[in-house]
């Protein structure tokens, strides 16, 4: 396990970058356990101070320490996106495989469901739901909500991949040689679909974090919970850009950019490592 990891770090710079950044972020998230301040409380430190040895990343106009606040924000944001990713994966895989392979009526019913979720303009609807739930939209609830909405596109991708696989010759070979349906799906198709699943998983986490930022910026989540989105919300709404308090607005923005890039690099790299055709291609290069 450790050796594979070391191999991957050596082989692919993108994996090394993504993995290191995520490791650092997880470590920062754990630091929140030692935070001297409650992230919900205001005016615990002097306000509007630039970075110093006492407050590494300065303090905010609401009297909070930016660096400790950031550790809470990373923790909550990562947790939220993990919940969203796991719950939407289960839905996407089951529905995509079933619909693609079975075809016929079941396919049509499932795809009608998927299509309505794909076509439903998610942002406005999420905003509607969020403005109803607003105060109770904690980290876990938001994760589940995003998971419940974020599966459809990936299910459609998986299904269209299966549709195409079903028309290929090896499927007929498998059927004619008496392979059972579950075996065909799990032994023959899953290896083809697996890169898609992991890559979409990382992309789904990206999407969930982006959605959280959007909703928070519009002021539609529980604003006293520290997440990257709510940090940006407070910084933008307190005119930190005009006041020149760069340490406040840039901290969450830069962390966001790092998370986004790291997750994306991981998804690209995992995609390549898991897809044997690409691996061969890279080795011959």
């Amino acid at each position, binding site marked *: 396990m450790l050796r594979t990891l070391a191999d991957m770090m050596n082989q692919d710079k993108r994996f090394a970058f993504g993995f290191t950044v995520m490791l650092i972020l997880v470590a920062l998230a754990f630091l929140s356990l030692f935070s001297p301040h409650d992230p919900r409380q205001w005016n615990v430190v002097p306000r509007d101070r630039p970075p110093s040895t006492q407050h590494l990343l300065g303090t905010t106009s609401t009297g909070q320490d930016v660096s400790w606040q950031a550790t809470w924000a990373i923790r909550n944001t990562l947790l939220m996106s993990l919940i969203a990713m796991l719950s939407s994966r289960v839905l996407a895989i089951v529905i995509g495989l079933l619909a693609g392979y079975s075809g016929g009526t079941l396919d049509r019913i499932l795809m009608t469901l998927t299509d309505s979720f794909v*076509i439903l303009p998610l942002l406005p609807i999420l905003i509607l739901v969020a403005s109803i739930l607003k105060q109770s939209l904690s980290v876990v609830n938001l994760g589940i909500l995003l998971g419940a909405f974020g599966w459809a596109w990936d299910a459609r991708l998986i299904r269209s991949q299966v549709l195409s696989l079903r028309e290929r010759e090896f499927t007929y070979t498998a059927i004619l040689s008496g392979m059972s349906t579950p075996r065909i799906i799990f032994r023959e198709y899953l290896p083809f679909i697996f890169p898609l699943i992991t890559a979409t998983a990382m992309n789904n986490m990206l999407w969930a974090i982006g959605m959280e930022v959007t909703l928070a910026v519009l002021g539609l989540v529980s604003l006293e919970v520290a997440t990257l989105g709510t940090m940006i919300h407070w910084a933008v709404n307190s005119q930190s850009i005009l006041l020149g308090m760069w340490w406040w607005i840039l901290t969450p923005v830069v962390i*966001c*950019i790092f998370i986004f890039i790291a997750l994306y690099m991981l998804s690209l790299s995992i995609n390549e490592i898991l897809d044997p055709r690409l691996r061969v291609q890279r080795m011959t290069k």
Partner: protein
Amino acid sequence: MPFLKKYLLPRIVQYLVVILIGATLIFFVPRLMPVDPVQQTLEKITIQGAFLDPDAIEQMRATLQDLYGLKGGLGAQYLTFWKRLFKGDFGPSFAQFPTPVMTLIKTSLPWTLGLLVTSTLLSWLLGNILGGLAAYYHERKWASVLESIAMVMRPIHYYIVALGLLMLLGYAIPLFPISGGFSIGRKFILTWDVMLDILKHALLPALSLVIVGTCTWFMTMRLLVSNLMAEDYIVYAQVAGVPDGEIAFKYAIRNALLPQVTGLALSLGQIFGGALITETVFAYPGLGTLLYSSINAGDYNLMMGITLLSVIAIATGVLIMDLVYPLLDPRIRYD
């Protein structure tokens, strides 16, 4: 006509079902909101200090409920909703009473359509061509430079890109106007000057959309084409001495375009509701701004109108795409 019966009919049925599900959801979701629009309108009237006797208020409440389609139980409301929908009537807006929702949408739609259709198509073309070429010529210097740029830009959330561009090109180096669709106080007549002004205001939002869009299409296309590079027919074409440019465009990009067409149909449909962040950040006077204000004001009719249009547009996109799919990919057959 087996094609009509076996292929076309199910698809059209599905199309209608999709719209039915969407419309039903859209009807019920806003009605769960804690804001009561009738009460709000009444409060707006009474807050101005006018004294009204309770009977008049009750009468007014009844009239308003009728106008807003909020009369009777949920079932009766639902029926009225469909009756109005078939007439293309989304009712009056609650917040900007008594302007019909359709009028508000019609005023905002050209702004959104102009901005988003242009930037979506432009970034789709740019992203696919550049992405395909970068994957095909992956050993060249320019390809890896393009790839690194797209790889870093692609995952950054659109809101942050837009905010960054606004801070950079609106405040720090004030090249572009920071908000609005045209200069304040300008008369809206169709002259060269006004057109230029509109274009200038649209540039910054369009730029942000094209940057993000191009990087997205670029990365998917690069992945798709590099997956194709090991395929036998590409290797065979190379061995057979087909010119590189021809292989890149006619063999690789053309085959990889299939999922991208799916994406384009969907992203064109998303336009109706999808401009929310762009228009909020740049204060651009389109559907997104209208939608945002309607949500803040608890304006059911307007919200439903915009979201419904969006559902219909995107369902139509999916239908067209489904019909074109077998023509594009002969491997997929529906029979």
